């Protein structure tokens, strides 16, 4: 019987859950299933909700109201930690998955309401929802290899922090935004800010769309020092075109945007572009606990390579923290790339003091994984230089100056923890320190004669991205590359064939094929037989459709918008790609923790059941992408 009362309560439950991760990412049907099968329980202050004595965990708990304190039960009383869980957070996933008693005790700190999902429904849900499945997988990620005590510690920490960086801006902006019209006087604005303890004021047009922002630090620089009249309109001193993000973007997106644009505020807007809230770096800071801003600040202010080396170590630490928090692979790799970019730029800045390149148009380029914004914990240098040389007679001399400069930058980057490239793919290599025309010629040659070496080069160098200097030089290189590839269909066909040269390591009978590397039996190289399957296919799609992006996920998304790739398939491949990246990061982390150089060799036998299943699905998605290539190029 369809029941309007049940429907109302279920809808309200869905709406509540959608405010939190991972439910905000869950498929509509799965979310409904969840809401239809939970029961709401109440626990008075001090009541034990779940503890190891209660036996095998029988339900998933999602906090609906109130606060729950989690503590390791028994034994480790000397370990000083506990976590507090609030609305939207769930617990006992680890115990449920392993069908064992909970290793922590959960106690109500005040009146607590919890949704309870019975264990059998929990398992159905992991099968119905990829998003939820991934969430559970991430929750117990990496814990199996470690001791029980570490398991408890990490789980409790993760549980406490997990909501944070993944939560949408909608849940982060708490108070109503205060905004003023552009003609408001500076005096009024400053008074408002003082009265409301605001660090910033947003200026909106009549449609409530933000057109500017004014911050406390602007008061000094733009008003007090120039001695400006307070009767002037705020529009005369505000920063225009403020950075905005949709409400659905999450805290990571905001952190990333701030890091990329070196700003401290991001405005959250709804679908109509109307201001819905302000997210400050401080808000994120609070969420994150670790020092994104401090790191950036120390990078920007660094005056020596030594300082930068520490900053780079901080970047690594922060990424590790994010990893243990259960943050997704895409966010982490992008985060690492962004901050590594900042380090690189600062290294270049420092070297420019010693090398006079004044008057020459040039740009520093990244290639390979760095060019794709997909760096992991172990990454070496892949870079080059493009410059303009108006007088052919000056060419050699100019190149010498750049090579000298590049050598210093390469060495400094090495000192900062980016090892020199064994393949000599570095700006200090005369072959990679070229004028715009020379680069164009090089690219044209590879495209016209797609022999194996040229194809290999294409997979590295065509993923170029400008990092410093004149970005428009890189843009011109890209345009010229597109002209070449459009005129040479054979090249794309060869590139596609090259992308198909490695097949996903899935067997017909047994699950995984692990025999590819005789030196490391029982393992799968997640770079060669994982990530590369996706990046290679994405590169072909991008070049064929003149997509400028180099990031694999962006390439796939853009290409799908331009072609017949079904969006559902594309998002499935993106999830697969991200999962493999996450496994790689985790593995590298684990290896480095144990004093080994991080490689990409994972043993499927050591993964848990769910991870194996997801990994298989990821490989199947790679296979699908390859099938698409075969079809497109009749291979």
């Amino acid at each position, binding site marked *: 019987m369809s029941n309007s*009362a049940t429907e109302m309560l279920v809808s309200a439950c869905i709406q509540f859950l959608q405010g939190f991760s991972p439910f905000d990412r869950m498929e509509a049907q799965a979310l409904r299933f969840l809401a239809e099968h939970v029961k709401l329980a109440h626990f008075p202050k001090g009541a034990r909700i779940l503890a190891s004595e209660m036996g095998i965990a029988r339900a998933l708990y999602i906090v609906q109201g109130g606060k729950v304190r989690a503590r390791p039960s028994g034994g480790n009383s000397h370990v000083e930690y506990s976590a507090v869980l609030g609305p939207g957070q769930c617990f006992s996933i680890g115990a449920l998955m392993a069908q064992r008693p909970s290793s922590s005790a959960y106690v109500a700190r005040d009146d607590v309401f919890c949704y309870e999902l019975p264990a059998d429904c929990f398992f159905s849900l992991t099968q119905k929802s990829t998003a939820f499945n991934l969430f559970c997988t991430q929750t117990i990620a990496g814990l199996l290899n470690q001791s029980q005590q570490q398991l408890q510690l990490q789980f409790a920490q993760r549980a406490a922090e997990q909501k944070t960086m993944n939560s949408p801006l909608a849940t982060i902006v708490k108070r109503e935004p205060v905004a003023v019209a552009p003609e408001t006087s500076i005096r009024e604005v400053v008074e408002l800010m003082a009265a409301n303890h605001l660090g910033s004021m947003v200026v909106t047009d009549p449609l409530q769309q933000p057109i500017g922002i004014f911050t406390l630090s602007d008061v000094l620089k733009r008003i007090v020092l120039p001695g400006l009249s307070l009767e002037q309109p705020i529009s005369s001193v505000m920063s225009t075109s403020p950075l905005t993000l949709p409400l659905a973007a999450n805290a990571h997106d905001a952190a990333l945007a701030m890091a990329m644009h070196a700003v401290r505020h991001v405005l959250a807007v709804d679908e109509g572009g109307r201001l819905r809230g302000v997210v400050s770096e401080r808000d994120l800071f609070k969420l994150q606990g670790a020092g994104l801003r401090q790191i950036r600040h120390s990078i920007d202010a660094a005056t020596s390579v030594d300082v930068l080396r520490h900053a780079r170590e901080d970047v690594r630490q922060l990424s590790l923290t994010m990893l243990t928090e259960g943050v997704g692979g895409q966010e982490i790799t992008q985060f690492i790339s962004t901050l590594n970019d900042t380090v690189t730029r600062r290294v270049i800045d420092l070297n420019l003091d010693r090398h006079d390149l004044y008057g020459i148009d040039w740009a520093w380029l990244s290639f390979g994984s760095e060019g794709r914004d997909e760096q992991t914990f172990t990454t070496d240098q892949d870079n080059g230089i493009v410059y303009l040389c108006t007088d052919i007679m000056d060419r050699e001399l100019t190149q010498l100056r750049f090579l000298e400069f590049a050598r210093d930058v390469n060495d400094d980057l090495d000192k900062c923890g980016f090892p020199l490239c064994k393949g000599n793919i570095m700006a200090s290599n005369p072959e990679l320190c070229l004028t715009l025309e020379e680069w164009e010629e090089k690219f044209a040659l590879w495209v016209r004669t797609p022999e194996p070496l040229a194809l290999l080069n294409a997979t590295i160098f065509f993923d170029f991205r400008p990092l410093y200097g004149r970005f428009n030089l890189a843009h011109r290189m890209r345009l010229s590359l597109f002209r070449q590839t459009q005129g040479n269909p054979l090249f794309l066909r060869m590139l596609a064939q090259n992308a198909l040269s490695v097949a996903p390591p899935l067997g017909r009978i047994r699950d995984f094929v692990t025999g590819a590397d005789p030196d490391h039996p029982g393992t799968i190289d997640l770079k060669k037989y994982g990530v590369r399957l996706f990046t290679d296919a994405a590169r072909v799609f991008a070049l064929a459709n003149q997509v400028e992006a180099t990031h694999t996920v962006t390439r796939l998304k853009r290409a799908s918008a331009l072609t017949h790739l079904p969006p559902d398939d594309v998002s499935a491949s993106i999830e697969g790609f991200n999962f493999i990246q996450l496994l790689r990061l985790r593995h590298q982390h684990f290896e480095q923790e144990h004093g080994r150089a991080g490689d990409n060799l994972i043993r499927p036998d050591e993964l848990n059941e769910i991870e194996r299943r997801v990994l298989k699905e990821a490989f199947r998605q790679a296979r699908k992408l390859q099938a698409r290539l075969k079809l497109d190029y009749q291979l």
Partner: protein
Amino acid sequence: MAAWFSRLFTGQEGRDGALAINQQALLAGWRQLPEVDISRSHYRSRYVLVDVETAARSLKSDRLVSIAALALVDGLIDFQEAFHVVLAHDAPGADAAAGEASEANAPTAPNPALVIAGVPPVDALISFLSFAGKAPLVAYHSPLVGAMIERALVEHLGIVSAQPCIDLAWVLSDLFRDVSDVGDLSATQGGLDAWLAHFGIASIQRHNAVSDAYVIAKLLQIAIARAARKGFDSPGSLLELEKARRHLHQSG
């Protein structure tokens, strides 16, 4: 006001004759349900939370528009155990106006949505009884809610329910005497909002009967937890507590 629930069961002399055979069968089925043991623990009992929507142009023409109910089973709220029925207003003998908030401009045309969604009162009440069974009912201000249902039961089914009905307003004010921000409001109109605010319980849509039944169910969860700690560990003991409190208040 005499407690409506305390009246004796008088169904036999009712209007069974006017009911269709299947309606009589359903009603008989409900009557034959065994009485509920109200001395079992809260956490082994089924409570039914009730709220009603009424339409009124004056106090006298108050009539039942809809009934919402939600069960609290073994201490848990189960969304599948929810009930809502809208009563059709074109029942014979009813006032021409279905009231509603539609005011004077449409006195002869009841809200069309209600008519379409509405169920004849007899069927509506029978289905409510089937949902509720003989579980103890809980309402906030049950004298008002109860009287509405009682009147409807008498009018349409010719029966008077003997089910116990607990007024949460009295129960809460007794269990949480220490709560100052709710104070004496608790036993009078408007107290519900104060309790909800005190416990930080958000409504889906305040004054919607289903939503109100839901928040009252959450208040009941809080109440039984507190009651159990004070030794009132069953629906029966909650009834005792409510009676005593009411008596104390009225004589004091």
